[in-house]
């Protein structure tokens, strides 16, 4: 019989204890977690602290290129990395739905542990709750992270300046389309893989070589277009993208066309948008390309003085299509 999560696992009694020690503690094992106290007590290196938290509710929980566990580690690490922080510690909170197969939970927790280990980040505290069937969808994970920002580094969405260039470390829309194709059961030839990955090493290399970098952002929900709109508004500048230089995989482009989506609005989980002064753009690209996650890095756009707050795509035929921030899902505007 398949072993599943029961309400007992959330009772706080022996079943809870077993679950924690056999599944979580084993997988996440490290000295801080091993303290087994009400809170973990941690050493802090020099610099300023960066903190971030995010909850993960993806459906399906297992997808090509990762699962909700690895995603929960990568996502929070990336949020820390975008402010220039070196991520140090994570916490993990789980909301489990009654009936969740234990094997599935173990697979997710293993992926989480592996992602943390590869990223050299410790999961130092955790929590588990079980809710009755139907009150959650299989598994929800919250991760919070702490990192440290080296002195002198000052990144932010408000620092983009006219003349700066917009760089990205690789292809656009992979994560969102991997999820959608799985969810829609789209049998497209060749599987689209999520790009879910931890970006702090790439970002570390970049910032070391080019401390002049002004903005780093990970274009997750809402995609590249929405993230750039945020930067354009925060900095009071315009942003132009060049259609011919957008890196989009053929299968992602094809799936987007079939489903009627614009890849520029589709989520990414292993991508960083960097706004850098033009003088260092070549160096920045070079550094990014040396990292395995940045081999396809390229310049995709430019910051302009005109049209502040607006993002436009210069199309192959030379017009400028506006990429605005959408209110909700993409509803047809064509009459």
């Amino acid at each position, binding site marked *: 019989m398949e072993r599943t999560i029961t309400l007992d696992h959330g009772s706080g009694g022996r079943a809870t204890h077993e679950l924690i020690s056999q599944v979580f503690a084993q997988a996440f094992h490290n000295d801080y977690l091993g303290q087994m106290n009400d809170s973990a007590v941690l050493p802090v290196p020099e610099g300023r602290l960066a903190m971030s938290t995010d909850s993960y509710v993806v459906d399906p929980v297992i997808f090509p290129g990762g699962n909700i566990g690895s995603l929960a580690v990568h996502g929070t690490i990336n949020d820390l990395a975008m402010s220039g922080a070196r991520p140090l510690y994570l916490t993990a909170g789980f909301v489990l739905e009654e009936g969740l197969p234990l094997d599935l939970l173990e697979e997710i927790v293993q992926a989480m542990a592996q992602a943390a280990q590869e990223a050299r980040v410790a999961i130092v505290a955790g929590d588990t709750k079980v809710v009755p069937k139907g009150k959650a969808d299989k598994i929800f994970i919250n991760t919070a992270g702490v990192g440290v920002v080296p002195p002198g580094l000052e990144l932010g969405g408000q620092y983009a300046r006219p003349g700066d260039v917009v760089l990205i470390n690789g292809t656009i829309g992979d994560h969102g389309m991997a999820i*959608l194709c799985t969810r*829609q*059961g*789209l*049998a*497209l030839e060749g599987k689209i893989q999520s790009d879910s990955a931890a970006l702090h090493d790439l970002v570390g290399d970049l910032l070391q070589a080019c401390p002049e970098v002004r903005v780093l952002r990970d274009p997750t929900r809402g995609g590249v277009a929405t993230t750039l709109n945020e930067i354009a508004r925060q900095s009071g500048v315009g942003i132009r993208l060049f259609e011919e230089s957008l890196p989009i995989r053929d299968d992602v482009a094809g799936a987007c*066309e*079939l*489903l*009627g*989506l614009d890849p520029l609005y589709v989520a990414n989980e292993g991508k960083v948008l960097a706004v850098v002064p033009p003088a260092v753009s070549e160096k920045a690209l070079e550094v990014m390309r040396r990292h395995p996650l940045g081999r396809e890095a390229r310049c995709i756009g430019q910051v302009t003085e005109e*049209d502040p707050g*607006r993002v*436009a795509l210069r199309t192959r*035929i*030379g*017009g*400028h*299509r*506006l990429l*605005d921030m*959408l*209110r*909700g*899902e*993409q*509803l*047809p*505007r*064509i*009459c």
Partner: protein
Amino acid sequence: MSQPAERGQRRIRIQVDGIVQGVGFRPTVYQLARSLDLVGWVRNDSEGVEIEVAGPSDRVQAFVSRLPQEAPPLAKIVRLEVKERPWEPGDGFHIQASERTGSRTTLISPDVSICEDCRRELLDPSDRRFRYPFINCTNCGPRYTIIRDVPYDRDNTTMDCFPMCAACRAEYEDPRNRRFHAQPNACWQCGPLVWLEDAQGHRLAEKDEAVRQAIRWLAEGKIVAVKGLGGFHLAVLATDEAAVARLRRRKIREEKPFAVMFASREAVQGVCQVHPEEEALLLSRERPIVLLAKRRAVRPGHSEIAPSVAPRNRFLGAFLPYTPLHALLFHDAPYEALVMTSGNQSDEPIVTDNAAARDRLRNIADVFLLHNRDIHIRCDDSVVRSVRGKPRPLRRARGYVPVPVVLRESGPVVLGVGGELKNTVCLTRGRYAFVSQHVGDLENLETLRAFEHTIDHLQKILEVHPRLIVHDLHPDYLSTQWAEGQTQPARLAVQHHHAHIASVVAENGWDGPVLGVALDGTGYGPDGTIWGGEFLLVDGARYERLGRFSHLPLPGGERAIKEPWRMALAALWCLEGEEAEKVHGEILSRWPEKERRVVFQMLRSGFNSPLSSSCGRLFDAVSALAGIRDRITYEGQAAIELEQALEPDAGAYEARITRDEGLWVLDVFPLLEEVARDVRRGTRPGIVSARFHNGLVRAIVHLVERLRQETGLSAVALSGGVFQNIYLSRRLEEDLIDQGFQVLIHEQVPPNDACISLGQAHVGREHLKR
């Protein structure tokens, strides 16, 4: 000063409002007063024209009654008010200098095509303006496109940099001259000039030689960018298939029809069937593009128009030369038909200045025929069709703008910012609604800038600021976002089809409630579905939805609009569900299996497949089912080609009228089922088209009949993009009239989304009344 009136003498003051400045009104007044031997004066003021005349009562009376009849051709008198003045003798009749105070409420004239007098002089070797490409007079020439500010004086136009020579000045100052106060008056000595450049910017020829060389380039099949009145044209020989195909390739315009300018009415008649009302439109001083049915075979002596001018289209957009430069390009030329399409790349706004033309059209045009009279306001060519003897505008711009729509009553200043596609804006002042020229599709930066410029310019020349900004309910329309970005004044959101019907109500000066039938593409509905086949009760600022077309999902959202085959799948899915492949395999096999599977999966899961009651999408579904059009390259193409394919047939598919959640529903599924059955039987697409049109008209009339019983209303207002379809319009109007309905239709603004701004402004005013 004033003395007791002599017996039988009278002095009056006349205030004339309307388009009465810059159209030769004062010379007419002068001549009329002189012929009646009256004394007094005439002058322009901020409201229009002010006149005082004195003399024997009977002749003063004759003056008042003859004035409107003898007004010059371009004048449009909206108000004429007479006030008695104390008697005062005078000597002679004078034209006084302009009054420049007060609010600027005078109306600006649209641009007017070259008049017969100027045309005669243009081609008269003894005239001092022989072959001068900028000849004009008070009865013709540029107006709206060159005006930077009011009052309309040369200093406030782009002609300010051309000081008049002595000869021109004398004409300008002589009240008896046809060029008295003609602000753009000019000649070879003092006015703007043309020249010809190659794509590298080298000057090839100047003045008359430039025109003569341009004709030679055109005759050889080359593409010439011609600077016109409201923007650039790209011109090419309309009879040369290779040349037209080259223009299509370079302009990246796949199939959208090109308009053709013909040398003369006879040349048009050689290629198209021209009914008298259509001929009147062609020859009108607005000189719009008129959509005319092509002849099966051209008349002897005329040449066939190249097929790629208007592929798969039984109609042709034809127009006649409207500037002196056009007239010269056709004079003594070895051709009588030129494609004249807007000078732009694909969907951008038409180019208006020389530098932009050199930059943007470099890869399209072989040579450039330029001039140095600046275009201040962009204005595309207008497009009309004729329906039941009346004009049906499809694009309202040059020649018509800025003539206002006269409203039923006066009211506060309101700005309607229009829709997303075919955008126009509308500003009201007093009893007038000023609908802007066609701005375009607000999806790119260039058009958005044109939109903002148009709003600024309208406010400037009308010298008003709105009390209310009205926008569409769709949160993502750029016009909505623009409105939301304004801190002042208040804002009002109006549902798309409410605005459609309100615009018909406004232009007809209708008072009270009306039944509205909006047959349209897509508009944002307040219930989270997309509307587009709507039966509304509209009463001023209020509307109620009484009925709708059946819901069809749009698999892929906007993709489904660009790919009508998806609508065909949606229709078959709604009819048969999982059985669709089995039942309609024959039809479905036309489309690739892989894509089909994805679309069916989207329909099954509802992913990115919003529901819509759109009539336009129903046309798309039928067009694709009938095998006419699977993917479109320009807006409305599938529906247009379905109409074009129509072969007369008396049959009519049956649609059902049902009720759902308190609404009448025009259930289109029985109709779609019959379409599919006829297609499976191999019925010709043209017959399917006819039966579909007929069935739809019959069902709409039935539903409106029910609404009349329910509401007691028998006035029906028709609007929406589907009314660009002439067959459907004609049949529906006639059938409704036969059933005793009073039918309100568009004659001044287009039924497509160009009318949204007027409807918004109207609803805004009604809203402020409450």
